[in-house]
């Protein structure tokens, strides 16, 4: 797998950084964090401690040092490895029961011998399936899990593995800070409640900062938990979002995505799964806010590298053709990872509020580009907002309900 030469896109990112320099849609009043400049200006720990408890402040990082995040391809499941330049490692989830070899051999290949923190987002088998094997195989520092039992043997075996190592479990809840050294700030922003009807909503959600780069890992958090995060006052803005619940329609609510505004979205999902993941609506919502979408079912293991300012991926995002009317229910063919050096510039945050719509200039209906009932005549494309189109006299389509 080829990494995209960074030189090519560094200029784009620089231009982008200048274009959007420090603008923020964050409605939450927070102390503005110190800017990380090229001169290694020190952010004192006092600053990052007191900056806010509702966000992860930017950190000071050494030039050329990279944070590496692997969204491991474990099919219809999640497993994510975070490698910090200071040598600390975090594993979020451990795939299905059958993924033990995939995960342990991948970790060993990356030179991992100790997992400083292991997070089991919630006790479903597609997230904790191989956690017992992982715990038995590596040196483990801390285990973080929401306080929610399962009756499965899979869960019981994980608990037994934790016990056999003489470890205790730290309860996952919003506001928990992870101790991983000064290069990263890591904070759990969910779960915000003590109990939920749906186990997915217990998901531990992690926000991570490295330099000025930000990452959000959503587990299987669904709309109820997403709403709590939106209303909690946490700053949800993130460069990269690990999309909730394998891209299911139960997650990725509009209000949540509007707060996160991810430049990049990663969906961990199995090819041809029986559950219809990811949902077309999720893909449409992400592309409509300008996110580049990466999928493990199309690209295999996805590796993101952050140097504190720029983020590069080892694969090419799935370029959805926004103007092609969808005639079938099947997803477009995967963009084969290629050695192309062009990497389209991400949509600047300043225009992220604009959504691409297709309008019928005669019937005055407006549609999402993915709608099954797009006009073939009197068609025009508009980058606008829903409100503006309604102001202009257009009405939303009844099929795609934009």
């Amino acid at each position, binding site marked *: 797998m080829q990494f995209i030469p960074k030189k090519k896109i560094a200029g784009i990112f620089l231009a982008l950084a200048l274009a959007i320099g420090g603008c923020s849609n964050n409605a939450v009043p927070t102390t503005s964090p110190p800017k990380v400049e090229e001169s290694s200006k020190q952010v004192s720990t006092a600053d990052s401690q007191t900056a806010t408890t509702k966000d992860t402040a930017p950190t000071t990082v050494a030039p050329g040092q990279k944070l590496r995040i692997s969204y491991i391809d474990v099919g219809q499941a999640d497993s994510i490895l975070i490698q910090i330049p200071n040598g600390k490692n975090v594993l979020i989830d451990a795939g299905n029961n059958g993924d033990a070899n995939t995960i342990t051999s991948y970790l060993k290949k990356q030179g991992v011998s100790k997992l400083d923190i292991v997070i089991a987002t919630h006790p479903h088998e597609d997230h904790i399936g191989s956690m017992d094997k992982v715990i038995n195989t590596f040196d483990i520092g801390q285990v973080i899990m929401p306080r929610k039992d399962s009756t499965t043997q899979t869960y019981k075996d994980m608990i037994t593995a934790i*016990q056999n190592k003489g470890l*205790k479990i730290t309860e996952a809840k919003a506001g928990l800070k992870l101790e991983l050294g000064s290069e990263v700030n890591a904070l759990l922003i969910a779960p915000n409640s003590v109990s939920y009807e749906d186990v997915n909503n217990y998901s531990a959600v992690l926000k991570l900062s490295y330099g000025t780069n930000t990452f959000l890992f959503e587990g299987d958090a669904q709309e109820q938990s997403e709403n709590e995060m939106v209303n909690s006052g946490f700053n949800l803005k993130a460069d990269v979002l690990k999309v909730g619940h394998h891209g299911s329609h139960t997650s990725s609510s509009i209000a949540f995505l509007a707060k996160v505004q991810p430049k990049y979205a990663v969906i961990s999902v199995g090819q041809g799964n029986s559950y219809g993941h990811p949902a077309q609506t999720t893909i449409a919502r992400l592309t409509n806010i300008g996110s580049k979408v990466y999928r493990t079912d199309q690209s295999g293991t996805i590796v993101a590298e952050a140097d504190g300012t720029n983020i590069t991926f080892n694969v090419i995002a799935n370029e959805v053709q926004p103007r092609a009317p969808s005639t079938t229910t099947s997803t477009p063919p995967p963009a084969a990872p290629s050695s192309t050096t062009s990497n389209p510039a991400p949509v600047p945050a300043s225009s992220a509020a604009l959504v691409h719509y297709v309008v019928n200039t005669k019937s005055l209906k407006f549609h999402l580009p993915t709608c099954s009932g797009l006009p073939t005549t009197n068609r025009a494309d508009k980058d606008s907002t829903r409100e503006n189109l309604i102001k202009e006299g257009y009405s939303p389509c009844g099929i795609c309900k934009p």
Partner: protein
Amino acid sequence: MKGIIDRFEGDFAVVEFDGRQIRDIPKSELAPGAKEGDVIFLANGKYQVDLAETLQRKTEISKLTENMWE
């Protein structure tokens, strides 16, 4: 052959059988009211809930984890 409902996904219950074998069971094959965490067994073409064993497992697991939290 008993199973434990791990979760629901779309039209399926995802069920863990002996030896941690995972299988999708269509919701239509479950007795109404079967929930996540329930122990189920096949009888008369439908998966019924074994209430006693479900309760026993829940008790056993909470006992196992009660002193695990910091």
